[in-house]
């Protein structure tokens, strides 16, 4: 018997095989929050947008902030996982699935916001490129239609990137279970046996997907940034927005990943798999991204300051000194100062330190999205288009509940799928000889 592999199966399948009362409690807790948000959204759909704080000239508030934020968080998984796969980083193995799941769920949640943001959400299908009876096609030159294509491409790719390596793990669950569970996982395993041909095809498919999905991930947040930089709004028309958004997305994604890993480690007792070294490595990445984020903010701010264009300077000072200054400086502390201290000093680069820094980054990045959108929209080129935005309870509930939705989806996923890829862990576990003098050609 391979004791190590048996132990691995036992540890990683435990959450699937045993269900405690805490699972039901968690599902009920998050479920209630999500249901409340659903009710709030239905109220908004029934009563109209008057119940929200979104009104002229600030038409994008909490909803679009949350949209950009969640699309950013989605960069945690597939992008990080693909990079680590391509460079064959051995420490990636326990991390990849945890990360890829974040991508899929964050994209699903993010993609909901354009629909939530519609006055008549039941007409969302008008965005789809199909030959309707109105003979009107979507305007392919609009960044909003680019979003539609980019997000759907990324979502499709991320689902496949998550799904393909799950098949061998479904086979393990099938072999280790009985009754109805065995029947269900037999279906999901698609007859996987583990022949050399199947392994080669899987690894080739994953290599191709990793190569393809990297530029897609970069394109997605670049296109999201085009929603802003293509519009004549102060401090939006900037060529730095594309890379600035991508860097911010990866930054917040890593933070989200660290938090998810810490929670899973604690509650699913994965201390032997999610090791301090994983957190330390991700902490270093977080530090690099904090520096990169600071570099982009410096670029954006300095160029605006030297340009000294009156409308842009008005928004600039709003965030530096006026109404939005408390939020702005909180963002700077959370996104730059905190990670720099906690991740820069080795003593603090512990699991707790990484989690504290990551929570700060998640808060900071949400504020960053908010501060890009609202101050600029509330202070456009002419005084007649000045306005303020006050988020209303319905928006706060819906935006806040998305965190509960993420947690709920994650809890349910971890209940039905091994949250750490078992077969990939086994690859890391076994040591084989280097092929040298053996004849090839076994076919």
């Amino acid at each position, binding site marked *: *018997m*391979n004791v*190590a*592999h048996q132990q691995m*199966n036992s540890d990683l399948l435990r959450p699937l095989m045993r269900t405690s009362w805490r699972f039901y409690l968690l599902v009920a807790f998050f479920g209630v929050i999500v249901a409340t948000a659903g009710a709030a959204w239905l109220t908004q759909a029934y009563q109209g947008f008057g119940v929200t704080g979104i009104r002229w000239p600030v038409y994008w508030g909490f909803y679009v902030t949350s949209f950009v934020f969640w699309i950013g968080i989605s960069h945690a998984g597939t992008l990080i996982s693909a990079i680590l796969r391509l460079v064959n980083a051995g420490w990636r193995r326990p991390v990849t699935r945890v990360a890829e799941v974040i991508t899929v769920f964050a994209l699903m949640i993010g993609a909901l916001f354009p629909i939530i943001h519609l006055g008549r959400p039941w007409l969302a299908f008008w965005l789809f*490129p199909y030959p309707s009876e109105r*003979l009107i*096609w*979507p*305007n*392919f*030159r609009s960044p909003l239609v*680019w979003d539609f*294509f*980019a997000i*759907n*491409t990324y979502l*499709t*790719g991320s689902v*496949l990137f998550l799904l393909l390596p799950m*098949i061998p793990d479904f086979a*393990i669950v099938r*072999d280790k279970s009985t009754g109805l569970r*065995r029947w269900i996982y*037999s*279906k999901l*395993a*698609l*007859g*996987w*046996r*583990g*022949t*050399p*041909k*199947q*392994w*080669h*095809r*899987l690894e*080739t*498919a994953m290599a*191709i*997907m990793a190569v*393809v*999905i990297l530029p*897609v991930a970069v*394109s997605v947040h670049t*296109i999201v940034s085009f929603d802003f930089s293509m519009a004549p709004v102060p401090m939006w028309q900037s060529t730095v927005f594309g890379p600035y958004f991508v860097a911010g997305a990866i930054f917040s994604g890593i933070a989200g990943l660290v938090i998810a890993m810490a929670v899973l480690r604690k509650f699913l007792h994965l201390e032997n798999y999610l090791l301090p070294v994983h957190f330390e490595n991700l902490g270093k990445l977080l530090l690099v991204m904090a520096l990169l984020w600071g570099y982009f903010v410096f670029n954006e701010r300095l160029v605006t300051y030297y340009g000294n264009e009156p409308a842009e300077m008005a928004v600039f000072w709003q965030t530096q000194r006026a109404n939005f200054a408390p939020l702005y400086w909180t963002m700077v502390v959370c996104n730059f100062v905190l990670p720099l201290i906690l991740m820069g000093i080795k003593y603090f680069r512990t699991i707790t330190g990484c989690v504290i820094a990551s929570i700060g980054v998640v808060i900071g990045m949400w504020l960053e999205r908010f501060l890009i959108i609202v101050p600029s929209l509330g202070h456009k080129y002419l005084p007649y288009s000045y306005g303020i935005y006050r988020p209303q309870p319905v928006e706060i509930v819906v935006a806040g509940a998305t965190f509960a939705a993420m947690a709920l989806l994650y809890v349910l996923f971890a209940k039905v799928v091994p949250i750490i890829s078992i*077969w990939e862990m086994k*690859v890391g576990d*076994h040591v*084989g*000889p*280097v*092929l040298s003098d*053996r004849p*090839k050609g*076994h*076919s």
Partner: protein
Amino acid sequence: VKAVYGLYPDGASAQQAVDSLRAAGLSDREITVLSSQPMEEYEFGQADKKTWMWWIACGGALVGMASAMGLSWLTETSWPIDVGGLPTFAWWPNLIITFELTMLGAMLATAITFFFTAIFPGQFRSPHLYDAEVSDGHILVGVERAQDETRVAQVLASAGGRVKDLAIWSYRELHACRRIPIAVGSTFRAAIAIRFPKTVPRIARSGKASPQRGARE
């Protein structure tokens, strides 16, 4: 179906078993190797490595690109919208849609190729050799249709394997190890059930091949 196989604790002993079977006159096509992880470090893990998947992915990308260009051309010319004096069919903005659908085409082609080359071929073939202990890290080396079962069992045992044999696969086992697409439905499953009547598999769990194997219940 008469299958004989051995379970090996590591890649080295599995490689030895494969080499012994070859020395006994079996071809690579007759030898089945199953593992719960890729074993590319070993020669037996190099089987069936050649694939057209990269090229098919490139083909899918080309199809995606052509679809995107066709879609944007057709829609923009059939319903021209004047946007700031830009040309009706503007290359720069269309490049974004073209890029996304190109990548989507490559990803879908990859996934479809994976399913058609690694998953679906096994769906409609005769019952496969399998043992759930593979999931515990054992490497299965066996012969699905052994002509000389005793000889094969001896060869597998000599390589240090725990030898088992599988006399016949019940519908239940078949059902567990072979996936029949839902779309094909119960008609196909019924046909399989007739072909492989419900029987209890006889599995000799001794260290040697059982002379009574193959008995139906």
